[in-house]
């Protein structure tokens, strides 16, 4: 069945080693969660996973929120709540715009409906090979399994997801899906499919995957992607990736199916200026991920690549029923995964132990609220309520309070015998003499019990006694005796003014009004030369190279030198007029060693290039060849992402595809060590000149 996909060759030779609760498509925990989590502590490799997650937490979450990011966080919190205030309205507007742009919109209530829609598209178009980029929505509806059952080859193309597909596992983290796997694990897995040795360094492993996936991108009939944000006012779908697979999936196959859950919509295209940087910062403390693909409709007449059909599948799966209720805010989530890194329970047991599509704090809240409420019923208890997730969350979702409220919902749903105990306990303790009596009884009983029997009592003591000495309840009442004997008379004292009460939790503060801060906190560059210098510095930080030339002619010569006589694909861009004559041009980007492009804009603060698709301006030129050279006159420089997004929002007609490129293709899916040049170019040169 895996005849058509090259990447999946040898998959049947893999012997899965995962526990049953790490399987894809798991509907509910196979055993009660206390047991599953205990098994998770014993899973081989778990201590190494915990150590890795601890490092990521220190690196990504530890620094907390400081300007300008704290301001962006306030704005994002507002934008997301504004969205939820009229979700149906924004979805309606989005659907209208997407259709006007030439896309087809499908609304699906639940997973079955969503699967039916995608099945129909695949069947109608005779699809045999599908390439997918990372999408939690498709995990939620268990799409891969369904398509495979139809006889379609489905290939996960994100490096982490590809590893997991071969290993037959679910992602254990939203943005770092294979964080629980060591490079030795991955090498052993790749050797099974390859039927021979592969290198063990992360670079070798990434190269192995790249090579296997490359032909599949080229040959697939259909690309399936998720959606990070969907702008209602323009019908634009924004996708964030670092490897470049998201760009491949949305540009190479003739059909693009984007699957989103309802809450991914945002009111305005310009909101992306806040959300795209913030989601990258929250997840990995970089100002922008490498690639943002902004899709506004399928390919237009005259364009040589891009999909002929664009389908947007909007899945509800129980979410709209949360609107107006006390859990509405959970839909503000932008799926950054920061709450997972921040959670000490998650780091201790790993994401699979939650036995749910979504693990960690967001999973413990979301899972019982969507789909089958019984499947994730125990999850809200799998938290020490330490509150780290609320601090980490870039949109300020009060996850710990929701966990507390969900626990109440859980207890209210079932006739728990403990309810009677809690009621009696509360009544006794809400009455002074009752509390004192219970304290006396506790002391008496505890002193009568031999120490060995204390941990064997029914109730919470049994859990406590597993690995801890029992609390010294023989001390019950001692405090009051001590107070009485030494100080019989008591009067209220007159304290001075106390310290200021600590501030309560902050709420959104109407931050739409705030000016958008620059991402580097620096004032805008004074002139074009300074902007070019800043751009070059920013490029260096993301492993690309800026070349500042003193004239247009010098710049053109530099571009030709960088191409060095190798087969070159070049786009038809006003800044490149006459350039093609100086280069050994090939028509097909797949045959080129270098892709030469102009840009629409270049952002000084982040080193980001904004490329737009159009007739003669292919999506592939800056993506498919292993090297990318961009020629940029100073006049195309803008200081900030905010200004860039604003300018792009004003483009008429709106391009069918805008790509933001910040540096070279990168993956951190193997033990979180960065490797470069995964699916997109591994070398990016930006040639700048006054003009």
């Amino acid at each position, binding site marked *: 069945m895996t005849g058509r996909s090259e990447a999946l060759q040898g998959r049947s030779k893999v012997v899965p080693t995962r526990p049953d609760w790490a399987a894809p498509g798991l509907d509910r925990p196979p055993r009660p969660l206390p047991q599953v989590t205990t098994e998770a502590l014993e899973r081989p490799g778990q201590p190494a996973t915990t150590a890795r997650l601890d490092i990521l937490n220190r690196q990504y979450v530890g620094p907390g929120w400081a300007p300008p990011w704290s301001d962006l966080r306030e704005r994002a919190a507002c934008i997301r709540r504004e969205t939820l205030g009229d979700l149906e309205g924004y979805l309606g507007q989005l659907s209208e715009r997407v259709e006007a742009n030439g896309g087809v919109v499908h609304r699906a209530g639940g997973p079955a409906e969503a699967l039916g829609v995608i099945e129909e598209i695949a069947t109608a178009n005779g699809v045999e090979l599908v390439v997918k980029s990372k999408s939690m929505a498709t995990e939620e509806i268990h799409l891969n399994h369904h398509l495979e059952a139809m006889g379609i080859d489905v290939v996960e193309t994100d490096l982490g997801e590809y590893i997991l597909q071969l290993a037959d596992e679910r992602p254990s983290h939203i943005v770092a899906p294979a964080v629980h796997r060591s490079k030795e694990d991955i090498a052993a897995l790749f050797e099974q499919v390859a039927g021979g040795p592969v290198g063990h360094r992360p670079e070798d492993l990434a190269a192995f995957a790249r090579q296997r996936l490359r032909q599949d991108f080229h040959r697939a009939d259909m690309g399936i992607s998720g959606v990070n944000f969907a702008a209602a006012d323009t019908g634009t779908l924004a996708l964030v990736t670092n490897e470049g697979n998201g760009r491949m999936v949305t540009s190479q196959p003739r059909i693009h199916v984007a699957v989103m859950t309802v809450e991914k919509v945002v009111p305005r295209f310009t909101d992306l200026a806040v959300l795209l940087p913030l989601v990258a910062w929250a997840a990995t403390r970089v100002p922008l991920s490498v690639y943002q693909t902004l899709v506004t409709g399928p390919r237009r007449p005259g364009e040589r690549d891009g999909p002929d059909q664009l389908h947007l599948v909007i899945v509800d799966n129980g979410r709209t029923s949360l609107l107006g209720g006390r859990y509405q805010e959970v839909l503000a989530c932008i799926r950054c995964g920061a709450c997972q890194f921040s959670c000490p329970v998650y780091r201790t047991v790993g994401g699979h132990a939650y036995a749910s599509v979504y693990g960690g704090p967001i999973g413990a809240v979301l899972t019982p609220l969507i789909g089958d409420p019984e499947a994730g019923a125990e999850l809200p208890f799998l938290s020490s309520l330490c509150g780290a997730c609320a601090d980490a969350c870039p949109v300020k979702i009060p996850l710990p309070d929701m966990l507390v409220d969900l626990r*109440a919902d859980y207890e209210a749903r079932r006739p728990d015998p403990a309810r009677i105990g809690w009621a009696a306990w509360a009544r006794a303790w809400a009455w002074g003499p009752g*509390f004192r009596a219970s304290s006396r009884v506790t002391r008496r009983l505890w002193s009568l019990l031999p120490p060995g029997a204390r941990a064997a009592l029914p109730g919470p003591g049994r859990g406590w006694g597993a690995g801890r000495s029992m609390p010294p309840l023989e001390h019950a009442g001692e405090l009051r005796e001590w107070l009485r004997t030494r100080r019989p008379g008591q009067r209220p004292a007159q304290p001075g003014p106390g310290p200021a009460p600590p501030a309560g939790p902050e709420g959104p503060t109407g931050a739409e009004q705030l000016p958008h801060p620059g991402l580097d906190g620096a004032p805008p560059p004074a002139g074009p030369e300074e902007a070019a210098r800043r751009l070059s510095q920013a490029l260096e930080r993301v492993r690309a190279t800026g070349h500042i030339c003193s004239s247009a002619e010098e710049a053109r010569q530099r571009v030709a030198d960088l191409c060095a006589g190798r087969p070159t694909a070049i786009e038809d861009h006003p800044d490149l007029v006459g350039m093609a004559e100086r280069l050994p041009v090939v028509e097909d980007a797949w045959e080129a060693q270098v892709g030469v492009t102009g840009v629409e804009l270049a952002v000084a603060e982040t080193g980001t290039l904004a490329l737009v698709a159009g007739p003669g301006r292919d999506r592939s030129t800056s993506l498919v060849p292993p090297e990318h050279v961009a020629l940029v006159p100073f006049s195309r420089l803008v200081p900030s992402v905010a200004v860039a997004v604003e300018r792009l929002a004003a483009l008429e007609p709106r391009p069918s595809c805008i790509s933001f490129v910040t540096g070279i293709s990168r993956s951190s899916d193997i033990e979180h060590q960065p490797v470069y040049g995964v699916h997109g170019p591994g070398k990016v040169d930006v040639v700048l000149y006054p003009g």
Partner: protein
Amino acid sequence: MALFASCIADLAAPGPARAAVEVLEAMGCRVSFPEAQSCCGQPALNSGFPGEGRLLARHWIETFEPFQAVVSPSGSCVAHVHHQFPRILEGPWAARARDMAGRTYEFSQFVAAYGEGLPLALDATVTVHDSCHMWRALGERRSVRSVLGRIEGLRIVEMEDADTCCGFGGTFSAKFPYVSVAMADAKLARGQGAGAQWMVSADPGCLMHLQARAAWKGSPLQARHLAEVVRDALGPGGGR
């Protein structure tokens, strides 16, 4: 001023509350102990029984309302009063809860603000466990170190992940005992790695859990409440 000892102090760990009284008296405070006090209700709320949590919250407010200030050696309980009381109570009770939150202080906050003149000296090497509810729900991130910093001869060695949860989590510690204990082990290992004799915190819940685990494993590290450390550091003319 009134002392809210917490139910853990009343039932199992009287030491920190006693020490808190001694330190507050050394500062010149007259400490009252309302006999009707019991529990803030956090265990009930966090176990999924908000009705019971509300009952105890109202009882707590009634007990402490006559006092101008309330001080407690339990950071988690104070955070519960500040954050959860106004959230779970309704109508006039919510207003009374907000009023109480305005005059309820955690012990280290109070000592940091008003214990400036205390003569303190103690020869010890300690590390600080920043307990979650104080650190996050209460937003108090300085007072424990600032009080410890006033003790002559005391060395603070910082451990890695000082603000990571110790794994207590109230009923979590009994529902998921093995996970809870694994988290305590990580915490204790970091304290030991830092070279501390004592792990100091301002939360009796965390301390009970950490001490119980340390005792079970025979770990040389002791978990101690800030109030006890400060009491031990009081000069001879101090609180005795």
